[in-house]
């Protein structure tokens, strides 16, 4: 493999990992920016998205858990990926709005530490509930064969890079369409303007006579929908088990947040891609050091640029 070929392959893999990271990071960052609320249960939203996606897309065979004890062996709707693509963010949105009203709202005025603690407890509860009800075993990832009549499985031959899994390209495409839509929403609509203004100075926005609390639920729902969507994408190339929320989603989301800068959507996108590319680069040649390198990068950013790449505000106690 030539150096150029290797570089492009790293970039593609980095984009794919980075897209997922960015989706998670955007959700976390707009919730933090607008409501000044730190959500350690963000990984749980990814988890809910992954399981919801799996159950909508296909039919799984249960091996353990409460439902199996009740005599249910096969669970799931089997409606396919396209339907899941619309339903899963909806599920995430509803869960997010409920979370905002029931859990986050009473904690807006409490210190960040309390918010971290209560959402950490919530994350553990959600993870255990999933484990108890659907089972603690691992489910294999499964990508669709065709999408809207087009073949999306198998390798595709790209210029420069050579053979590359077709599905990974599709993931990059879908993820970036969603990221672009979020971007347009934030930049071009009045809602987005309010949210953006709220991340800068929510007090000022409410002084202008805008009922910012109303957009709180919307922002939380939007962030949750993005996390759930990331979970759905995750099920198509990574195994699904109850721990993915805390292992695969929560920590990366926070890393993206601090690298990109709190409250910055642009920062979350760039931060996600940077971290994804570093991870992909090391995975290619020094796989054992990949995660360590990613964390080391985050530590360096925290030491030398605590406000993150694009951050304008540093979150304080």
């Amino acid at each position, binding site marked *: 493999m030539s150096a150029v070929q290797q570089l492009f392959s790293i970039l593609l893999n980095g984009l794919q990992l980075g897209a997922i990271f960015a989706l998670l990071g955007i959700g976390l960052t707009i919730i933090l920016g607008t409501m000044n609320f730190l959500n350690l249960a963000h990984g749980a939203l990814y988890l809910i998205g992954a399981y919801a996606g799996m159950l909508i897309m296909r039919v799984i065979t249960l091996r353990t858990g409460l439902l199996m004890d009740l005599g249910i062996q096969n669970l799931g709707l089997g409606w396919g990926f396209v339907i899941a693509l619309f339903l899963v963010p909806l599920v995430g949105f509803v869960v997010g709005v409920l979370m905002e009203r029931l859990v986050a709202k009473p904690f807006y005025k409490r210190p960040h530490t309390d918010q971290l603690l209560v959402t950490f407890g919530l994350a553990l509860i959600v993870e255990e509930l999933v484990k108890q009800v659907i089972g603690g075993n691992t489910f294999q990832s499964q990508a669709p064969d065709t999408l809207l009549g087009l073949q999306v499985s198998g390798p595709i031959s790209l210029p420069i890079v050579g053979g590359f899994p077709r599905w990974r390209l599709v993931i990059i495409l879908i993820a970036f369409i969603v990221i672009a839509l979020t971007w347009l929403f934030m930049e071009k609509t009045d809602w987005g303007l309010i949210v953006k203004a709220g991340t800068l100075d929510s007090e000022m926005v409410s002084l202008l006579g805008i009922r910012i609390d109303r957009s709180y639920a919307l922002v939380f729902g939007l962030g949750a929908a993005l996390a759930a969507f990331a979970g759905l994408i995750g099920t198509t190339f990574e195994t699904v088990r109850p721990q993915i929320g805390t292992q695969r989603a929560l920590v990366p989301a926070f890393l993206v947040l601090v690298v990109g800068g709190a409250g910055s959507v642009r920062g979350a996108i760039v931060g996600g891609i940077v971290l994804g590319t570093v991870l992909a680069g090391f995975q290619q040649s020094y796989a054992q050091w990949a*995660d360590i390198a990613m964390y080391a990068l985050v*530590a360096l950013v925290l030491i030398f640029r605590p406000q993150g790449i694009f951050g304008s505000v540093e979150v304080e106690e």
Partner: protein
Amino acid sequence: MSTETEGEGGSVGATGLTDSDAVLMIASAVALFSLPWVLVDGFGIVAEMLDFSIGGYVGLPSLILIYGIVVIGYNLLLGYTGLLSFGHAAFFGTGAYVAGVVSQSVGSPIVMVLAGIAVATLIAWPIGWVSIRRTGVYFAVITLTFGQMLYFWALGPGSWLTNGDNGFSEVGTGPILGTFELDSAVFPNIGFLQSYTYEYVFIAILALLALWIANRILKSPYGLIFEALGQNQQRVSFVGLNVQRYKLMAFIISAVFAGAGGALFIMHENYVHPNTAYYWIQSGDFVIMTILGGAGSLVGPVFGAFIFEYVANVLSGLSLPVIGAIGSLWRIVLGAVFVVIVWTFPKGVYPGVRDFLVRRGARDALDRLSDRVRNRGGESE
């Protein structure tokens, strides 16, 4: 500190302090001495009467105290200095691995603990130095970052030392001071003291020492500064104190306790895996124990460790009439209890209850005082 230089009030205060210290230490010693009997035999008797397996097993008291030692130190950081670290597994795990490696050449438990503490302190210094420059969520994330780096190191590149994903099991713990085997009972001939092993005695002495040290620190001017930092960092710096230095010391001291706990942990389990040593959820468990028992009180977190380990190891094996086996449901219960506690007691259970009692106590005292004043007024008339 001599009484001569201090006024009368000062020396009275000082004696009052030592008295309460002595009471605290004696009470703790009694509690630690009775823990295995209560937990294993006492609960066992109740269990037989109720036909309900709620009794502890022989190793459980040791495990509770090991985590107890860790959270006594962790609480100095979270409960007093007000820094939420999600990376203390780094020091716990390092203590465990270092003690394990040391045990292969020197089996003495005392040497193992000292080595664990030494290396945990050594890595806590740079990690702490960097981390304390950030506050709030950034502090939490940066400590988590360092912990996770060690986790992935132990799983991958460090497996030559840690044995990676297979876990470290070649632990050669020897007898204490060359004579007392850890597993053997201290009183082999006394029936009801069977659950007292030398291991437990060793750990209990260290736990008592940990309590004593933490108490000394907190009662000293140094500890007062920790507490002041937790309340208002800015005002501490206005007084002219070097805030970063005190934060760093709080961080390192808490790492010393975590390192000792880690060394004892591998001694107790004879095995350690990156997941139990370094993974960030382990750090989260320390947080839960501390909050459960009450952050900001000296012995509170030890109760937290007790509740956590008891629920995790004993109640999880319980089978209830309606629900059936609790099994791994224990984490849901624990998580729910945790959420409720954070929700209702912003300052932690113990300080919340104490404030309530103090307020009542103060009110009683005021009532009594006003009664007396009123009576005296009556006399004079």
